[in-house]
């Protein structure tokens, strides 16, 4: 599609990248067909093709107001459109860039800025988030149901078992920000399963948030700082031969896989960032290449519905990975519909766009529960907590299912 950058953008690396993405779009409209918000709202402005057009205006120098922002804000960044797009338009990258530019050029109201600032400061801070969550959990029984629903009850690890830290094979583990306090069972399961496979995990204390919260909220510099801090924290162990960075939240994994691209112009970090991105692996990618028979799995007869998070199926282009591992492990998987659609969690989306998030949640739960599953398995903490607010069926990280059936 023809685009002509506004003079104030001409020659900047960011705008050049935006232009090359804009030009790769041929305006066919296939993307709208698989876009969750277009499915709900049926308005060209709320589908990828229309948003690309709005972003084109921004980079071409038109007067852009909060009217444009309304439609960009409604995008989940689920990247379902990228899976559908035959022309290979890197939409996720484009909308991130546009959001960054708009935060600078068109500051939000003080109230909106405060909410976003609050999210950026709380979620990525594991200690602060953990403390707040514990307070929430302690008063949870007294809360009205609507609010109660938002606070996940405290998880108790179902099984303990001794593990060894002395395997020859070593990998780094991303602990995440919300995970240690909200869903500690996930990484506990990762640790036990990998231990059984002869892999030790290390998690340097200085590693923190992957940067996704800040970056996707348009605070790019802050996001990049999180990324650099993680690279610094992991680098000594990478030099010592850690063979991968294991991630059990596919949202974080998608971000870390993009470090190389996002820091490509940073003279100090560019090379290291590429190495980190190459080493980043979802726990499913690790298991896909390991001999699972060594785990001696004894699957129960539970019927399972799988929700592959958008970050895994679209962001990392791995739509069948979890299902394949669960099938290989002997679990019975149920048929589900509209697998490509987002559940509405989408990072901070469920907080910032509650109405649409709820509509998508309802739709997703219906699509997952068509054949009455005993349990719904997913691969990202955001989806897990959000889905649980819409159903009584237990939602778990799939690795917990594997962990539960390892013969001890």
């Amino acid at each position, binding site marked *: 599609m*023809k685009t002509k950058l506004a003079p104030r953008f001409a020659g900047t690396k960011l705008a050049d990248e935006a232009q090359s993405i804009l030009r*790769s*779009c041929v305006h066919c409209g296939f993307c709208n067909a698989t876009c969750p918000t277009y499915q709900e709202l*049926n308005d060209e402005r709320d589908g990828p093709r*229309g948003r690309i057009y709005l972003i084109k205006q921004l980079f071409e120098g038109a007067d852009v107001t909060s009217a444009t922002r309304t439609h960009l804000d409604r995008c989940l960044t689920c990247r379902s459109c990228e899976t559908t797009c035959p*022309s*290979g338009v890197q939409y996720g990258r484009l909308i991130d860039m546009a959001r960054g530019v708009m935060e600078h050029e068109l500051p939000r109201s003080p109230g909106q800025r405060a909410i976003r600032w609050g999210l950026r400061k709380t979620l990525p801070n594991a200690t602060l988030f953990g403390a707040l969550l514990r307070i929430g959990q302690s008063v949870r029984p007294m809360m009205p149901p609507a609010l109660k629903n938002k606070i996940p009850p405290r998880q108790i690890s179902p099984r303990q078992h001794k593990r060894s830290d002395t395997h020859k094979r070593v990998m780094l583990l991303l602990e995440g920000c919300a995970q240690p306090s909200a869903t500690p069972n996930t990484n506990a399961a990762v640790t036990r399963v990998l231990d059984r496979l002869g892999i030790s995990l290390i998690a340097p204390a200085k590693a923190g948030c992957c940067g996704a919260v800040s970056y996707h909220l348009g605070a790019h510099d802050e996001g990049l700082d999180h990324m650099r801090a993680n690279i610094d924290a992991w680098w000594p162990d990478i030099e010592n031969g850690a063979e991968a960075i294991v991630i059990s939240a596919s949202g974080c994994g998608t971000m870390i896989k993009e470090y190389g691209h996002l820091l490509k112009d940073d003279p100090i970090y560019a090379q290291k960032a590429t190495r980190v991105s190459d080493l980043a692996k979802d726990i499913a990618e690790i298991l896909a290449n390991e001999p699972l028979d060594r785990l001696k799995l004894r699957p129960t007869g539970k019927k399972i519905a799988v929700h592959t998070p958008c970050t895994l199926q679209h962001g990392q282009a791995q739509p069948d990975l979890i299902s394949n591992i669960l099938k290989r492990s002997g679990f019975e998987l149920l048929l589900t519909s509209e697998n490509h659609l987002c559940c509405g969690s989408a990072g901070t989306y469920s907080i910032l766009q509650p109405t649409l998030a709820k509509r998508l949640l309802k739709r997703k739960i219906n699509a997952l529960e068509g054949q009455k599953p005993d349990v719904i398995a997913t691969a990202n903490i955001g989806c897990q907590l959000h889905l649980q607010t819409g159903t009584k069926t237990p939602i778990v990280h799939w690795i917990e299912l594997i962990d539960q059936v390892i013969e001890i």
Partner: protein
Amino acid sequence: MPDTNKMVRNELVKEFSSFLPADSIIADAETQKPYECDGLSAYCEMPLLVVLPSTIEQVEKIVTICHHRKVPIVARGAGTSLCAGAMPNEQGVLLGLAKFNKILEIDADARTARVQPGVTNLSISQAVRDLGLYYAPDPSSQIACTIGGNVAENSGGVHCLKYGLTVHNILELKMITAQGEFLTIGSQALDTPGLDLLALMTGSEGLLGIMVEITVKLLPTPENARVVMAGFDSVIQAGDAVRDIIANGIIPAGLEMMDHLAITASEDFAHAGYPTQSHALLLCELDGTDAEVDAYITRIENIFKKQGATTIKVSQNEAERVLFWKGRKSAFPAIGRLSPDYYCMDGSIPRSQISHVLSKIASLAQRYGLRVANVFHAGDGNLHPLILYDAGVPGELERTEQLGGEILELCVEAGGCITGEHGVGIEKIRQMPAQFSDQEIKQFMVIKDAFDPLGLLNPGKGIPTLKQCQEYRALNREHSHDHGHEAHAHD
């Protein structure tokens, strides 16, 4: 925008606001912009106003108000048209029907479905799959294009060779006339007495009425369907293979051809296992009972071998069959990987002429210095040459349009016509006088006039005025004269 237009717009907004929610009326230029074009983004026009109704009553009111005020209306579905059929009119209302996205009723016994016009083509087949049924016409954009748009353009698709175009697969239409009146045409039976208005409406490009409900026919899913994929060293060989298949009296469920550029671009997206070294690819689908399919596959393989196919692969299961088609169905946009813009032509020719026309297109492309990728319904003789260009290069769009015009006129010369399934819209209006005489054009106008005497529905599309016809013919003569000189200069 002139002040009078602004005034009309403000008054319309006021009237529409009494029955439409605020977010269904788009009046600001900033967010109206994404509506300025359809799938052919080279042709743009900002509308006066965009409205997104969600009930038939709302459409009736909108059309009545517009009729009363003599304001043009352009209907739009998913905006995937490749002929600028849904390009807005600057003095008119763009009537988006995307919110009409419900399947109203499925009658498995009668094998019909009653659907709203904004339902996508593919979602009909998905909704009836568990009943062992499907909707046969399957344009490549079926994932996104709407059934309303399919009726407006009489869309075809891969399976039309055996199962017919949209016109052969619908039973009844409910529409709003230009005056805002509700009208039902056709019926739930196979035939209706009187003039065949259903056939007239199909392919009428939004010029005669606005469809608000469609009853489609459904077909039983065949017991078996398999695709034979063959690579050839030249498009001539592949074209001859198509001719042989038809001459042998075989009617495949689909018979599609792609040339080298299209093969490589599609393979890059779909990873369907296309032979990227080949200069031409044929995909031939056979359906029916197991025995029928097996017998036909042997015959098709023999024809392909006789014409020198270098690779032959037969789909081994349903997943592979779908994968073979995935590349073909995404071929147009996949061309976006090779070029920032493309111009998709849509001409039909007699099937015996394929090799001849393709070599002429290649030499025309060379003369214009532009690349042309060919993806088409070979079995129907429906060509889709895609001219690759860069809208950012001054003059390149104009040269592309000229080349496109020559290709369409070549189709007419070869005994074919200027559109197979995409419609005329704005894109091919200049070639209408090459296809039709003034007398024929006048007949089109009489029909248009009978339905829409004020000329408010999708004005400026589909049918050129007689004055335009004269101009286009004169321009064409001048143009071919110029090119005659150029060609000699190159000699």
